């Protein structure tokens, strides 16, 4: 049984003129525990929408989404939020660190929503995580004082601090230069693998996508697997599309 199981997922959005725009259509995807999956696609193809559906931030308008074999469409708001916090860690393109809070406070923040021991020991856990991304010395710095690469490393520590089973990364290198991006990606892959968490990465960058065990391409809301040898083809078509 897969950890995440999407079949026939569709997501329509209503436009201001009242018409329906299908952002996702008939998406099938399964992600196993500890697996690394990448999704490439041009801008506006629905990548973020798909990731939001995966992370229980958004609900599909068609199809079924099973998490651990359990349907997610019948979950109440409260249960859904809890499940999201327990299961997923998010890494965003714009880092989305909480402004004016130290790196340590940022990394500890997800544990504010945990219970018991995890909640009480959150600051120690945050320190450990910061050490693991090599930022132990910057624990008391605020995001405003950190470089982009450092901020994204803090975000990676934050995504992993609660021991999620899946890390969802939406263009994690999108705001970084090539070298920094590569270093951050290497770190993200390494740390998630160490934690045994699955990783779903959305990216424009084919070298980033190539790090994944399984690769997909999203085009106009449709998801298609990319064969290992097709990376170059995908790259060219992506360039011409964009």
């Amino acid at each position, binding site marked *: 049984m897969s950890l995440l199981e999407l079949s026939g997922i569709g997501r329509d959005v209503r436009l201001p003129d009242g018409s329906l725009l299908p952002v996702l259509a008939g998406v099938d995807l399964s992600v196993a525990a500890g697996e690394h999956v990448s999704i490439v696609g041009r801008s506006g193809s629905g990548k*973020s*929408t798909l990731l*939001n559906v995966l*992370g229980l*931030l*958004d609900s599909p308008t068609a199809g079924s989404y099973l998490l651990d074999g359990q349907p997610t469409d019948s979950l109440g*708001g*409260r249960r859904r*939020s*809890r*499940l*999201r*916090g*327990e299961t*997923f860690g*998010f890494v*965003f*393109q*714009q880092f*989305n660190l*909480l*402004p*004016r*809070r130290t790196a340590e*406070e940022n990394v500890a*923040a*997800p544990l*504010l*929503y*945990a*219970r*018991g021991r995890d*909640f*009480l020991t959150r600051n120690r856990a945050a320190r450990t995580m910061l050490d693991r991304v090599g930022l132990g010395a910057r624990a008391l710095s605020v995001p405003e004082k950190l470089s982009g690469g450092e901020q994204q490393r803090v975000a990676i520590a934050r995504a992993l601090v*609660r021991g999620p089973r899946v890390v969802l990364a939406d263009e994690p290198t999108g705001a970084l230069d090539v070298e920094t991006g590569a270093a951050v990606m290497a770190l993200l892959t390494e740390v998630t693998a160490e934690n045994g968490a699955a990783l779903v990465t959305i990216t424009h960058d084919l070298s980033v996508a190539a790090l994944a065990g399984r690769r997909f391409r999203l085009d106009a809301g449709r998801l298609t697997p990319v064969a290992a040898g097709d990376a170059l083809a995908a790259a060219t078509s992506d360039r011409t599309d964009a």
Partner: protein
Amino acid sequence: MTGLLGTFSEAWGEVRVHKARVLLSLVGVFLAVLAMTTVTALGQIAAQVQQEQAEASGGRTATIGVSAYDPMTGNVPRQEWDAGVEALVTRYGLPEQAVATLAQESGLYRFPGGTQSVETRRVSPSYGPLHRIQPVEGRWFRAGDRQSLSPALVVNQDFLTLLGVTDLSTRPTVVIGGSQPVLATIVGVVAWNEGWPSTYRIDSSAGDAVTAAGGPGFGASPTLELWVPSEQADAVVAAVQTDLARLLPGAEVQAYRQDPENLEDTIAKLRLAVRAAGLVVLALGGLGVLNIGLVTVRQRIREIGVRRSFGATSARVFSAVVLESVVATALAGLAAVAMSVAIVRNLPLERWLAGGVPLVDAPGFPVSAAIEGLVAATAVGALAGLVPALIAVRVKVIDAIRF
């Protein structure tokens, strides 16, 4: 349990990070609570003082004054008056502490600097409680004082000064002159600062029969004071008037309500006005908090989205925003109440409210005003946090974290 702790740490973190903004928004609440609490406290103190002073002269609510005079001879003979009062008290079964007598006279007192005439109020022991007289030193009259050969006196400060003593530690006495001088004992001192000596003297003492009773210096027959429930006042006035007139044939009897009847009303109105003003000020302060709360919640939409991605439930988002507002205003309220206490303590209240006369119960800061201030500050925080909290809950996560 940890959920609650978490909400608190989150709210506290917000307050801490946004110190400047929070402080700014709280200036309004601080000032409002300060104004409201101070005004309420002062209003309550003023009302208390006013009531105290009114009762000191007119008696408690409701005090009926009764007096009689003979249109032919002037005074009603003392024995007849006493018998009439006795009969009245027995008929209505009035308790001892509800009946007081007062007779004004002037006595000749022998001070070290010479004999001087001093305004003297001869009163029954029940007069003191009825007028809330509390000596600053010594005590008020007791029924037992009537058995003493030496009449008991409760004097004011000027009297004591004339006598050349500063306190009662030397058990001061004074000779009351006249045809048959008598040595009086000072048992208490009251705080009246009239600027000239005056004294209370017990209505009768063991040596009186031969000295003053009915004597020429005694003046008019005493005024009788009856302390009755407010709602019975009118009935008592009418009954006493007819009954006493029958008991004292030929005498003109007057019964009237002598406490300031409308005082309760006036004070209630004063309090209402103060409260209304305080609420308006507080509402303005609350609007300030609400305004800044709205501005910040808009700035924080992305942050709220990020927290939702951490698994924050809508209930949690809601209570964190409300709590943040409450924590902040409650702190402002606390500071304002503390400030208000400091201000009220240091105001020359006696000069303003009592014309320099020391207050009998030096009124402390009204606890109710302090509690009211804190509750109001907290309530304003909750109310002002409500709208931003509703906005925060309605934030669509995917829109909040979209870039």
